[in-house]
C-alpha cells in the first residue's frame, strides 16, 4: 500500500510528458493530489505496523505525510487556474516536476533507511530546481543556482553525517547497518564520538535544506523568485520533510540516551533563526522575501520546541501543521497579489484589499494567523511551546522568544499593512480573483482557524504519539 502511495504520482508524471492537452495536464495535478490524500488518509487510519525494514509509517511520518498531502492538494487546485493564466510559460516541465516532487517527498517521509532518506531528499532538491526556474529570467536563475549548489553541498554533508552514524555502528562492534529501526534498537552500543559527529553533520545538512539560520541564505532568493505555489510547497511541505529528517537524528540521539547535546544544538539554532528572521523582516519591502524570512522564523520555532522537549515538543509538532497550512495560504494569496500588481515590491503594491478583496483579505488574515494572533492555530501551538518553556524552567529563553515574536509581528505587520491597506497605487489590471485561485487558500485558512478552536481527538493522539517518539525511552 505504502509503495503504491509512493509510486502513485509517477504514472501521471509520465502521462503528462506525452499528453498534448494543456488544461488536462494541469488537472492531472489535482486528480493525483486528491488520490494521494485519500490513500494517505486510508493508510494513516489503518496504521500498519513497521514490518518492512525499508519503508513504513510511524506517528511522526503519519503527521508529516498528512500535512504535506493536504498542502499539495490545495496547491494542485491552485495550479490549474495559475497555469491557465500562464500559457506563454507552459506547463510541460512544471507538471511532471511537481508530480515527481510529490513522489520524492512521500518516499522521504516513509523511508526507514538513512540512505534511502538521503536519496529521496536529494531528489526533492533536483526536481524542485526547474520549478524555481519557472519564470526564466535573471533573478530566477540566480536563485536556482544558489538553491541547487547550497542544498546539494548541504545534503552532501548530511551524507557524511549518515556515514559517521554508520561508522558509529561499526565502532560498537556491530556489523554496520543504516536501517533506522536497527540503529534505534542498537543505539546504546553505538560509538559516542562518531554518533555525535554524525548528528552534527545531519543537523547541518538537513538544516540547510530546512532553512535554519545561519544556513538559510538560499531561502529568500528561492522563495522570492519561484512561482507562488512552488513557494507554498517548499515552505510548507519540503521544510516539514527536512525537519522530519532532523527529527530522525534526534530520535537516534534520544535512543542512545544522549539527547542533551542534540537538544542544546536545536535550541541554539532555533533562537538564532528567530533572531536573524527578526532582523531581516523589519523593513522588508518584498512581500515574498518577507514570507521566506517568516519561514526561517517558524523553522526556528520548530527547532526550539523540539529542543526544549516535553510539552514544547507537542507544541512544535502541532505548529508544524499550522505553519504548513498558514504558509500555504500566505504564499498563494501573495502570488495573486503579485499577479494583480505585476510586482511584489512594497513600492508598487498598495491597497491590495481594495483591488483584490478576497486575496487581500486572506493575505491579511494569514498574516494575523502566522504571527500567532488568536484564535488561529499558530496561537495555540506557539502558546503551548511557551508553556513548555516555562514548564522546563527556561524563563530567559521564554522571554527572548516572546520578544522576538513581538519584533517579528511589528516588522511583518508594517509590510503587510502597507501592502493591503490604503488606496490602490495602480489601476487594477486584467487579473481578478478566480475560484481556484482563492478557494485553496481560503480552505487552508479555515482549517488553521478550526485547529485553533478545536483539536480533534485522533489528531491529538497522533501528536502525543509523535512527541513520545522523541523522548528518551528507558
Amino acid at each position, binding site marked *: 500500500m505504502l509503495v503504491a502511495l509512493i509510486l502513485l504520482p509517477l504514472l501521471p508524471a509520465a502521462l503528462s510528458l506525452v499528453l498534448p492537452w494543456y488544461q488536462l495536464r494541469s488537472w492531472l495535478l489535482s486528480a493525483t493530489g486528491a488520490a494521494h490524500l485519500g490513500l494517505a488518509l486510508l493508510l494513516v487510519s489503518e496504521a500498519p505496523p513497521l514490518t518492512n525494514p525499508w519503508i513504513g509509517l510511524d506517528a511522526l511520518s503519519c503527521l508529516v505525510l498528512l500535512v504535506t498531502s493536504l498542502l499539495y492538494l490545495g496547491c494542485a487546485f491552485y495550479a490549474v487556474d495559475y497555469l491557465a493564466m500562464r500559457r506563454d510559460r507552459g506547463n510541460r516541465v512544471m507538471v511532471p516536476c511537481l508530480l515527481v516532487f510529490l513522489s520524492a517527498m512521500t518516499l522521504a517521509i516513509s523511508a526507514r533507511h538513512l540512505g534511502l532518506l538521503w536519496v529521496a531528499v536529494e531528489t526533492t532538491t533536483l526536481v524542485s530546481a526547474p520549478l524555481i526556474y519557472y519564470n526564466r529570467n535573471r533573478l530566477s536563475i540566480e536563485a536556482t543556482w544558489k538553491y541547487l549548489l547550497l542544498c546539494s553541498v548541504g545534503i*552532501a554533508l548530511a551524507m557524511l553525517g549518515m556515514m559517521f552514524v554508520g561508522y558509529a555502528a561499526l565502532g560498537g562492534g556491530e556489523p554496520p547497518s543504516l536501517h533506522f529501526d536497527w540503529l534505534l534498537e542498537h543505539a546504546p552500543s553505538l560509538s559516542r564520538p562518531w554518533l555525535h559527529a554524525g548528528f552534527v553533520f545531519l543537523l547541518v545538512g538537513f538544516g540547510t535544506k530546512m532553512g535554519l539560520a545561519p544556513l538559510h541564505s538560499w531561502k*529568500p532568493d528561492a522563495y522570492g523568485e519561484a512561482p507562488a505555489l512552488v513557494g507554498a510547497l517548499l515552505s510548507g511541505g519540503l521544510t516539514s520533510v527536512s525537519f522530519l529528517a532532523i527529527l530522525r537524528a534526534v530520535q537516534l540521539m534520544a535512543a542512545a540516551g544522549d539527547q542533551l547535546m542534540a537538544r542544546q544544538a536545536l535550541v541554539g539554532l532555533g533562537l538564532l533563526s528567530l533572531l536573524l528572521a527578526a532582523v531581516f523582516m523589519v523593513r522588508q519591502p518584498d512581500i515574498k522575501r518577507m514570507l521566506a524570512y517568516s519561514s526561517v522564523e517558524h523553522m526556528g520555532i520548530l527547532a526550539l520546541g523540539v529542543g526544549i522537549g516535553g510539552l514544547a515538543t507537542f507544541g512544535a509538532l502541532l505548529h508544524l501543521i499550522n505553519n504548513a497550512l498558514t504558509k500555504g495560504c500566505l504564499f498563494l494569496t501573495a502570488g495573486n497579489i503579485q499577479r494583480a500588481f505585476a510586482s511584489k515590491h512594497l513600492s508598487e503594491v498598495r491597497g491590495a484589499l481594495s483591488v483584490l478583496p478576497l486575496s487581500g483579505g486572506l493575505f491579511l488574515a494569514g498574516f494575523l494567523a502566522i504571527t500567532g494572533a488568536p484564535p488561529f492555530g499558530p496561537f495555540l501551538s506557539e502558546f503551548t511551546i511557551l508553556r513548555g518553556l516555562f514548564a522546563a524552567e527556561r524563563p530567559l529563553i521564554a522571554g527572548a522568544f516572546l520578544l522576538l515574536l513581538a519584533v517579528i509581528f511589528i516588522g511583518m505587520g508594517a509590510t503587510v499593512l502597507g501592502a493591503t491597506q490604503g488606496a490602490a497605487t495602480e489601476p487594477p489590471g486584467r487579473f481578478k480573483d478566480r475560484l481556484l485561485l482563492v478557494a485553496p487558500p481560503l480552505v487552508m485558512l479555515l482549517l488553521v482557524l478550526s485547529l485553533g478552536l478545536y483539536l480533534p481527538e485522533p489528531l491529538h493522539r497522533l501528536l502525543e504519539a509523535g512527541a513520545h517518539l522523541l523522548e528518551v525511552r528507558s
Partner: protein
Amino acid sequence: MSDVNSVILLVVILLNFFTLGSARLVACIRAAALQGALLALLPVTVHGLSGHSLMLATGAFTLKGLFIPWLLLRAIREVRIRREMEPLIGLVPTLFLGVLATVAAFLFADRLPLLLEHQDGLLVPASLATMLTGFLLLMTRRKAITQVVGYLILENGIFIFGVLLSTAMPLVVEAGVLLDLLVAVFVMGIVLNQINREFSTINTERLSALKE
C-alpha cells in the same frame, strides 16, 4: 592490497593539488574524472572481489570517471569557456591553503577514534583532504563550472569515507546516490547553459542581484 590502496590514494591527493593549482577548466575536469575513476577501484581493493564491490566499482567508474566528465566537457564546449581567469584568491595561495588543509586532515585523522584496522591506512586522511579540497574550490572560484567540479570532488571525498562501510550501504542505495549525483550534474549543466545565455558569462559574481 594495502599498497595498491596507498598508491591510489596518494594519486588522489596529488590530483587534489592539481585541480587547486590549475586555471584550465578542461584540465580540472579531466583531473576530477581521473580521480573519480581511481576511487571507483577502492571498493574492490579494500573489500576484495565480490558481487557488491564489483557492481559498485563499475557504477562509480562509469559515472564518476566517464559520464559526468563527458557532460561537463560538453557543457564547457557549449559555453566556450576555457580558463578560470581571476579566482577570488590567487592560484598559488589556494594551492598553499590546499597543502595546509591536507596536513590538517592527516593530523586530524590521527586523533580520530578510528577502529584498529583503519588506523594505518590512508583512507580517512585522504577522504578528509579531498572533501576540504572540494570546499576550497567551491569557495574560491568564480566560474560556475569550477564550482561544479568542487562539488564533485567533495562528493569524491565522501565516497572514500563511504568505502569504509560500503558493506552497510545496500546496492540500491549506492545506485540511488550515484544517480542523484548524475542528475545533479545534469541539472547544473542545464542551469549553467541558461546562466551563460542570460549573462553571456558563467562568472557567479554576476549572480548578485538578490541580496539584502
